[in-house]
């Protein structure tokens, strides 16, 4: 696979020559995943979870992802993966978003496996990565404990004497995951990530806005755990920044699916003797969706570059991509229902599945306000280094 490189001079000159696009191989991979998810009727699989006729995740889709090597694509070959990179995760994430695929890919592969790769001790990598790469084992992240933004101070889960104690809420794939990276404070009060098997914990599913991404509450009570390398608060923020880029790609995929649904319906449906797609009120609405989607995609591409090269601008690029994609998907999902009219508000139509997913993705890594503050702080920091 061609690598991503950047020969730009200082950002402000505007003189960079750029190739801000995925390679043909990466696009082909995206097409392949899109086809697989479309052939497996992924949206209907998501519906089964929303309707409660299935729990956890769609095992058939997951099996196909294993077969295609998607689960291991960004994991090094010595740990059983294919040794590709972040850009491949981007195109896979976009396809998952487009088809709202109910799989544990985001937390298990994009976040937990990435965290172990970046911050785990060698022994931990050898123990945990092969299972994640093959997709036979599933990991998740256990972060939130209370309503509102996550802060170091408000993490009450404690690690000490080799065990964890505390309670985590809204843990995605919490019922299906074999193990989790748990955010907890050690005896000295520092926050870190701890690896814990979930088999012996008390877990209960939580009803949620988007049941196609099921969440659970997990009680840790003297649960054996070990620190993930020496990962601290800043490292956790780095993992979150990286994940934000991939989340943005999921959102971009979802937002584009909404625009297509809206367009197709508006072309089919007639009112007052003509296609409703011929009314400016609807055309302009769809143009506005297109505008936000385009901005979001472009921001996501730049963040993909920052991600794949571990650029210094990653924190601001990731925040920009996530904020832009959150706004785009929120708007596209809501207006998709509006353009469908009453039909869009029925259980039977798929619009609400995307509407649910859009809001869930918007908070999965923390809410908009938190990312806006993060973005502006990052830009102020960049400014003061530029001046100094």
């Amino acid at each position: 696979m061609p690598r991503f490189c950047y020969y730009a001079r200082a950002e402000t000159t505007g003189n960079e020559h750029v190739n801000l696009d995925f390679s043909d191989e990466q696009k082909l991979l995206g097409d392949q995943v899109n086809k697989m998810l479309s052939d497996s009727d992924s949206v209907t699989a998501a519906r089964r979870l929303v309707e409660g006729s299935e729990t956890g995740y769609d095992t058939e889709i997951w099996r196909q992802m294993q077969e295609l090597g998607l689960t291991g694509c960004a994991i090094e070959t010595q740990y059983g993966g294919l040794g590709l990179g972040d850009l491949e995760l981007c195109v896979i994430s976009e396809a998952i978003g487009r088809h709202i695929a109910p799989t544990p890919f985001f937390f298990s592969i994009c976040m937990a496996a990435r965290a172990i790769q970046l911050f785990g001790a060698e022994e931990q990598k050898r123990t945990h990565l092969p299972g994640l790469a093959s997709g036979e084992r599933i990991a998740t992240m256990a972060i939130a404990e209370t309503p509102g933004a996550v802060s170091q101070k408000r993490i009450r889960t404690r690690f000490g004497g080799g065990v964890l104690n505390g309670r985590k809420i809204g843990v995605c794939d919490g019922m299906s995951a074999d193990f989790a990276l748990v955010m907890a404070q050690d005896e000295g009060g520092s926050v870190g990530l701890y690896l814990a098997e979930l088999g012996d914990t008390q877990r209960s599913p939580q009803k949620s806005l988007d049941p196609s991404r099921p969440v659970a509450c997990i009680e840790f009570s003297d649960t054996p755990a070990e620190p993930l390398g020496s990962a601290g608060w800043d490292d956790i923020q780095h993992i979150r920044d990286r994940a934000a880029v991939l989340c943005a790609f999921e959102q971009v995929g979802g937002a584009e699916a909404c625009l297509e649904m809206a367009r197709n319906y508006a072309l089919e449906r007639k009112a007052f003797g003509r296609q409703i797609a011929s009314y400016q009120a609807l055309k302009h609405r769809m143009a506005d969706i297109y505008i936000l989607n385009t901005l979001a995609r472009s921001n996501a591409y730049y963040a993909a570059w920052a991600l794949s090269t571990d650029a210094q601008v990653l924190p601001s690029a990731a925040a920009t991509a996530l904020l832009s994609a959150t706004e785009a998907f929120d708007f596209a999902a809501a207006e998709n229902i509006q353009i469908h009219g009453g039909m869009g508000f029925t259980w039977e139509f798929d619009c609400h599945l995307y509407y649910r997913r859009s809001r869930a993705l918007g908070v999965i890594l923390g809410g908009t306000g938190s990312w806006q503050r993060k973005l502006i702080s990052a830009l102020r920091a960049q400014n003061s280094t530029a001046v100094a």
Partner: protein
Amino acid sequence: MDFNDTQQEAEFRVEARSWLEGNKPERSAADERIGGEESYLRAAKAWQKRKYEAGWACLHWPKEYGGRGASPMERIIWGQEEGKYAALSGPFAIGQGMCGPTLMGYAIEEHKQKYLPPMASGEHIWCQLFSEPGAGSDVAGLSTRAVKDGDEWVINGQKIWTSGAQFSDYGILLTRTDPDVPKHKGLTMFWIDMHDDAVEVRPIKQASGASGFNEVYFTDLRVHDSQRLGAPGQGWEVALTTLMNERLAVGDAPGPDFNEIFDLVCDLPDENDNPLVEDGRVIEHLARWYCQKSGLKYTKYRTISALSQGKTPGPENSITKIVSAAKLQQISRFAIDALGISGTIRDEFEGNEDNPALPFIDGFMGAPGLRIAGGTDEILRNIIAERVLGLPQEVRVDKDKPFSQL
């Protein structure tokens, strides 16, 4: 994704840069503007001539017409390298970007040979005469009449919103030659001499107080048939060619952007003497503008990427003007608000030497025009909806009726 020049592109960039290094103008466009329109025009023409003589004018034009026969990618590289000096090319943009390609497509060979090189060198400035008082967004509804008289056409009527007409030597003019067919079918394009006595240019004073646009009146203007561009009745098709050539000319709104409002709110205190930039409401706005600015920048990069790979760019750039003009309006309004009453004061006063309000006041007064000129927000949304998303046109009651019966 990679961000490298190909070897050929890199060599071109080095060549462009070294020429610019040795030949760049002494003063920026902004400095030249201080001396008024005449001195700005003089500087612009001098810079254009210097570029032309060294083969750096109208890069994408064929060499025989004064261009360089360069690839789209080389044109972009030149644009990046020319950077701030490109603002001195403003007076030639409409001619070289729109009139030139239209002449190339439809003028007789003799006229191409005669008029294109001086257009490239900046000796002649051209303007585009399309809009009328009664035909703005619906420009095909125009009523300036051209009537055939032997080898000549006699033209009467009025155009409006003509940028640069006050200093233009020539123009391309869209007229109605047959009112008895539906409006799109009865139009014909000509090129005309703006110095003809039958042409009268009157500047329009804009809401902002500036005068960049004009009204242009034609009273029995006689034009030889050889100056016709395209067949009689083919004018609409010719006009679309002209407008399509604007595809690469991405319309970023000129004026204060994210960096300017960001610097302002970092400096300004609120009533509790905290920097405004720490206020949640301010942060929310800043973050949104940053996402827009960054999204437009990387959208442009994606277009360049497609060109660089020899592919046809997608329609992404159609969003640029809608987003940037609205952003300019919001940022300017917000800045004036943040400055309080001093945000409305144009003068410098003691303690306010480098008046921070000025660019925002100009942005505030300029933005409404930007949202209209070159396609209103609404027309541009129609274009996205119809050409990009493939949605049907609104029902048009006038489409099949002869113009004379409307």
